[in-house]
């Protein structure tokens, strides 16, 4: 059996692939943040709470009668309204995205002309309120969510037995990252969006409805967070705090990748997942810290981040 630095090869490859899958979550979450920051100049601290809402939305779609009964006993809908995992993958991001649209239209919009700090404080406050309301409604210990039948069980990769669901996460998150990148960097819509962030007045003069485009961009970023939430529901505890566990790491990813850089957040997300995975083998105690060590080194060498443009 091959062994690298005293660690058996299969174990190492196993950890590398797990790291890659965790990286997929980081990439997907930081992508939403990067889109929102890049286009709206808002540091969206509510991202973790919206990720949590995505997971809860998929749970609520799965068992509507359970939570309706929690709100008011006797309240119920017919069983055919209960949506499983696959429909939830589309419906939950749309619902949470619509909620994001509402937030943008009512509060966030008022802060575009102010310093970044105001947006940060506002979204942080919103995160606390959303998480607090969720704890009040659903308790703190969380909700069960079953892995969909088609993705139950493991696949033999030769060096390890990988649960099918994890491979699906890699595929879905990777695909969604590519799609978003393509949309923003390679289509006319993306070109308009980028132009609108450079010079909104000029783009508006060409007849593009810039405020509507900005609202939809925020909703899109929020929908990405919710999509990650649905992907997370079967493997992570679905509870009101699940987002705040992720958000700090994800911010580090965005900073390392370069604030607002789409490609940066994708590459850094996957890369840091792998770095973290390796640390879990060699010195597990440091696996949460290693990301911040990387952040310090990168910021010292390239203050704008790996893919950021110097201001």
């Amino acid at each position, binding site marked *: 059996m091959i062994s690298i630095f005293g660690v058996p090869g299969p174990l190492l490859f196993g950890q590398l692939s797990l790291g890659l899958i965790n990286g997929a979550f980081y990439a997907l979450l930081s992508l939403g943040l990067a889109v929102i920051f890049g286009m709206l100049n808002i540091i969206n601290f509510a991202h973790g709470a919206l990720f949590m809402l995505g997971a809860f939305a998929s749970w609520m779609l799965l068992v509507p009668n359970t939570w309706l009964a929690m709100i008011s006993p006797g309240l119920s809908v017919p069983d055919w309204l209960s949506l499983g995992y696959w429909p939830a993958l589309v419906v939950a991001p749309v619902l949470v995205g619509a909620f994001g649209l509402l937030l943008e239209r009512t509060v966030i919009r008022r802060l575009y002309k102010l310093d970044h700090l105001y947006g940060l404080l506002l979204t942080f406050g919103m995160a606390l309120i959303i998480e607090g309301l969720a704890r009040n409604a659903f308790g703190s210990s969380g909700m069960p969510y079953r892995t969909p039948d088609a993705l139950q069980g493991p696949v033999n990769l030769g060096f390890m037995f990988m649960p099918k669901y994890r491979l699906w996460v890699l595929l879905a998150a990777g695909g969604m990252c590519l799609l978003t990148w393509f949309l923003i960097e390679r289509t006319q819509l993306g070109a308009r969006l980028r132009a609108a962030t450079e010079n909104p007045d000029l783009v508006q003069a060409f007849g593009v409805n810039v405020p509507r485009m900005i609202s939809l961009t925020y909703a899109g970023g929020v929908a990405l967070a919710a999509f990650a939430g649905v992907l997370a529901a079967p493997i992570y505890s679905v509870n009101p705090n699940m987002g705040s566990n992720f958000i700090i790491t994800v911010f580090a990813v965005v900073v390392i990748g370069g604030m607002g850089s789409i490609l940066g957040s994708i590459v850094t997300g996957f890369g840091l997942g792998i770095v973290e995975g390796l640390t879990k083998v060699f010195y597990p105690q440091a*696996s949460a810290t290693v990301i911040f060590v990387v952040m310090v080194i990168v910021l010292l060498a390239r203050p704008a981040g790996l893919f950021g443009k110097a201001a």
Partner: protein
Amino acid sequence: MIRRRALLAAAAAAPLARPARAQASVVKIGVLNDQSGVYRDISGPTSVACVRQAVEDGARGLSVEVLTGDHQNKPDIGASIARQWIDRDGVDMIIDVANSGVALAINGVCKEKDRVYINSTGATADLTGPACAATTVHWTYDTWMLAHSTGAAMVGAGGDTWFFVTADYAFGTALERDTTNFVKQAGGKVLGSVRHPFPGNTDFSSFLLQAQASRAKVVGICNAGTDTVNTIKQAAEFGLTRSGVKLAGLLVFLNDVHALGLEAAQGLVLTESFYWDLNDRTRSFTRRVLPKTGGVHPAMSHAGCYGGALHYLKAVADMGAAEAKRSGGATVARMKAMPTDDDAFGAGSIRADGRKLHPVYLFEVKKPGESKAPWDYYKLIATTPAEQAFRPLNEGGCPLVRA
């Protein structure tokens, strides 16, 4: 302040003085716990419901008032609520108090103010050790009892090789150390352990792979709350339990199992000192309290609030409300002198160091097919009798015992 109000009342009109005097003999119980944070489900509103049930079952002509407070898991907030309750509202007894840090702070306040403190959800065994107080009763469980029951009884049931997945902070490492000792004493072996960062870790799969590679029969989970739920959920995903490995949760409550669902939690082994479906008395208690909890079945932490409050009220009735309100220490002394008996824990007693003694149970979580009804989650695999379930009196270092 109170005296001046009484004088004013007496001066205003004689008939009004009577309700004022009646007010002075109202026994006030303050339920202080986490109503909004991570420990809400193991304490929170369900604990309050259980205290109200105790009042309904055991008030015997006493007039009792129940107050509720949210300590938000912050020792300073908890201590200031306790002081306010005692100084301004005349609270006689504080109960529950999840979170060991807050529990120790309240322990200090009640000792200083000579008020009764019954802890149910706080885990630290220090409450009956170095920090023990003549005003404190530690009712339901503690870290020593969990490590002992899960560690020793599990080895007895055939799980003799262990691997630990441990949260890398004081609570996790202490739990791992204690459990390791009990496993070794019982003739088991520890093959290894992995320390995961706390907080900030969400994916446990790599640690579980390391546990699997060690070929240990039992994986001990020395973390709490969301970390435990994530560990168990992902262990099911990676097929650990299906391959015959037993998961042993060192701090898992009924509500955590409910949150996981049987699909993910099946086969998990854990310790509680109360389960609603244990016998006729526990079922009868649960039937009575369910309308107050909105259908949430009580875990041992909640049941401890019932048992503790009920026994307190018995002692108060025995010595008279006026006497009980005068001194918390005297009330606890009376509680220790009387044998305990309630539907949740059966017959038991309270030791000199404030430790409540009762049997402790090792449960295994049922498979989805074995569960016949909602909340039908556990099957009993071992019972530790009351006299062996808790740390021996002379090993805790409690000053009350030496004196």
